[in-house]
C-alpha cells in the first residue's frame, strides 16, 4: 500500500508516544518486577519470582485487603450520594441542570491539595466541626474525625465524587422520561419503576463511575498521608514507600504489576457488561 508523506508524518507522533511513554515504561516495570534488589536500592540483574512470592506475606496481603475495603466503601458512599443527586438534578429545568453540573465541576478545577487542607481545618480535634459540635453540646469531648480510616474515607469520597456524579448523571438524563411516565400510568409504584426501569438503564453509568472511583482510590497516597496521619498504609503508600524510602524498586514494581492486572480484569468486566471504553475518559 502506498503511504504518502503526509500519512507518515501524522502517524509517527502517536507511535512514538505509545512506545516511549506507555509501552516502554510499563514493560520496564514488568521486567523490574522479576529482578532482585540489594539493601541500598541497587538493582541486581538476576531473575527471581521472590517479589511476587513476597506479596503473599500476611503483612502485604492485609494491605491489599485493606485497600480494597477502603476503596470499596468510598465507592459505595459515592454511589449513595451521587445517584439520588443525579436523579433529582435531572428532574430540573435544563438550565438549572446545567448550573448544577457546573457547580459540581467547579471545585475540582481548583487545587485538590488545598481542598484537602480545608478538610484538615474542618476535621481536626480543635477544628471547626468539633468546636461546633461541642458548642451545641452534641458531644462533650472532641470526636476523632481524622488520622484514622474515617478521615481517609471522607477525603476519598470528597475528591472522587464528581467522577461518580458525571457518568451517573449522564446515564440518568438519557433515560426516556416518557417511559417513566408510562410506568406510572400503568400503576407501577415508585420502587418498581426504579428497579425495573431506572436501575437497568443506568447500570452502565454506575459501573463506569464505580471504576473511576475505585481504581484511583487505591492509589491516592497523598490523601492517606494527609488525613490518615501516616500510620495507615494502602497500596498507593506501599508502592510509594518501596520506591522512595525502602529502596526496593523490584518489589514495588511487582505490586504495581498486580495492580495493573486487577485493573485490567475490572475493565474487562466493564466491557463485557457493555461498557464503552471512551466513556471512561470521564467528563
Amino acid at each position, binding site marked *: *500500500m502506498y503511504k504518502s508523506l*503526509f*500519512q507518515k508524518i*501524522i*502517524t509517527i507522533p*502517536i507511535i512514538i*508516544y505509545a512506545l516511549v*511513554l*506507555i509501552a*516502554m*515504561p*510499563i514493560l*520496564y*516495570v514488568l521486567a523490574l518486577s522479576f529482578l532482585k534488589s540489594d539493601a541500598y536500592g541497587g538493582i541486581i540483574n538476576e531473575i527471581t519470582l521472590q517479589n511476587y512470592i513476597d506479596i503473599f506475606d500476611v503483612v502485604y496481603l492485609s494491605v491489599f485487603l485493606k485497600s480494597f475495603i477502603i476503596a470499596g466503601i468510598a465507592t459505595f458512599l459515592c454511589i449513595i450520594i451521587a445517584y*439520588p443527586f443525579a436523579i*433529582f438534578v435531572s*428532574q430540573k429545568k435544563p*438550565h438549572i441542570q446545567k*448550573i448544577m453540573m457546573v*457547580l*459540581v465541576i*467547579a*471545585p*475540582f*478545577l*481548583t*487545587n*485538590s*491539595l*488545598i481542598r*484537602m*487542607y*480545608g478538610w*484538615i*481545618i474542618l476535621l481536626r480535634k480543635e477544628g471547626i466541626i468539633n*468546636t461546633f459540635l461541642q458548642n451545641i453540646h452534641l458531644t462533650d469531648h472532641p470526636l476523632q474525625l481524622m488520622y484514622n480510616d474515617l478521615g481517609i474515607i471522607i477525603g476519598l469520597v*470528597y475528591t472522587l*465524587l464528581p467522577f461518580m456524579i458525571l457518568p451517573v448523571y449522564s446515564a440518568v438524563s438519557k433515560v426516556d422520561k416518557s417511559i417513566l411516565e408510562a410506568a406510572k400510568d400503568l400503576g407501577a409504584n415508585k420502587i418498581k419503576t426504579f428497579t425495573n426501569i431506572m436501575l437497568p438503564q443506568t447500570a452502565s453509568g454506575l459501573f463506569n463511575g464505580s*471504576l473511576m472511583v475505585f*481504581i*484511583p482510590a*487505591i*492509589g491516592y*497516597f*497523598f490523601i492517606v*498521608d*494527609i488525613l490518615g496521619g501516616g500510620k495507615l498504609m494502602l497500596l*498507593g503508600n506501599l508502592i*510509594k514507600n518501596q*520506591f*522512595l524510602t525502602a529502596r526496593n524498586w523490584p518489589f514495588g*514494581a511487582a505490586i*504495581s504489576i498486580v*495492580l*495493573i492486572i486487577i485493573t485490567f480484569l475490572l*475493565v474487562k468486566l466493564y466491557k463485557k457488561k457493555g461498557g464503552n471504553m*471512551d466513556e471512561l*475518559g*470521564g*467528563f
Partner: protein
Amino acid sequence: MKWKNFYIGLVLLFLYLPILVLIIFSFNTSSLNILFEGFTFKWYGELLNNVSLLEALKNTLIVSITSTLISTIIGTISAFALKKYDFKGKKIINQLLYIPIVIPEIVLGIALLSIYTFLHVELGLGTLILSHIAFSLPFVIISVRAVLDNMPSNIEDAAKDLGASNIKTFWNVIVPTIMPGITSGAFLAFTLSLDDVVISYFTAGPGSNTLPLQIYSMIKTGVTPDVNALATLILLAVFLVLGISTILQIRNIKRQVKV
C-alpha cells in the same frame, strides 16, 4: 419536591464546605486557622512575597501550558490519523491509549520514574512536561475522536475533489469542523495537568516544584494563610471563566427552548 432540593443542597454543601472555610480564613488575622479573630487583607500581600509559592505557580503554568499545547496538537493529528489510516500496530496503539486512563496514576508515575532513571534522564521540568503529556494525550484523542466520528465523511471528499491537498484539507476543513472536540480535549488536559499530584510527585526534580507539590509539602510542614489567599484567587478565576461560559450556554439553551 422540597426534600429533593434539600438533598441537592446538602451534596453541594459537602462539595463547597472546605472551600468556604479556606475563603473565610484567607481574611483571618490569626495565622492559626482555628478561630476567626478579625478581618484582614494582609495574606494577599504576603502571597506576593512568598517566593517558593510563586515559583511553584510559575512552574505549574509552564508545565500545564506546554504539555496541554503539545498534547492537543499531537492528540488532534493522531485522532485523525487513527481514524483515517490503517497501519501496523494501530490496534495495539488503540489499546495502549487506554492505559493512562484506567491504571492507577501511581503506577504510571513509578513506571515513568523507572524509565527516566534507567535511561539516565535528569528529572526536572522536561520530565514533568513529558509525563504530563503521557497522561493527558489519551484524553485529547478520545475527545477529538468523539467529534470526528460524527463528522460527515463527504466534507473531506468534497474538499479533495476541489483539489485541496492533504494538509490544506486537514487544516482548512477538518480542524474547524472538529474544533469543539479539540477545545474540550485541551480544557481537560489543562485541568488534569494543573492539579496533578501523583505523577508529578515521582517525576519532578530539583527546581521544578509545581504548585500541588509545593502545597503538599506546606501541608506537611505548616501552612501559612497566604495559601488560603491563593486558593481564593484560583477559585475566583475558575468561577469567572465557568460563570461566563455557563451564562453563554444557558442563553443558548433558553433560545432553543423558545424556538
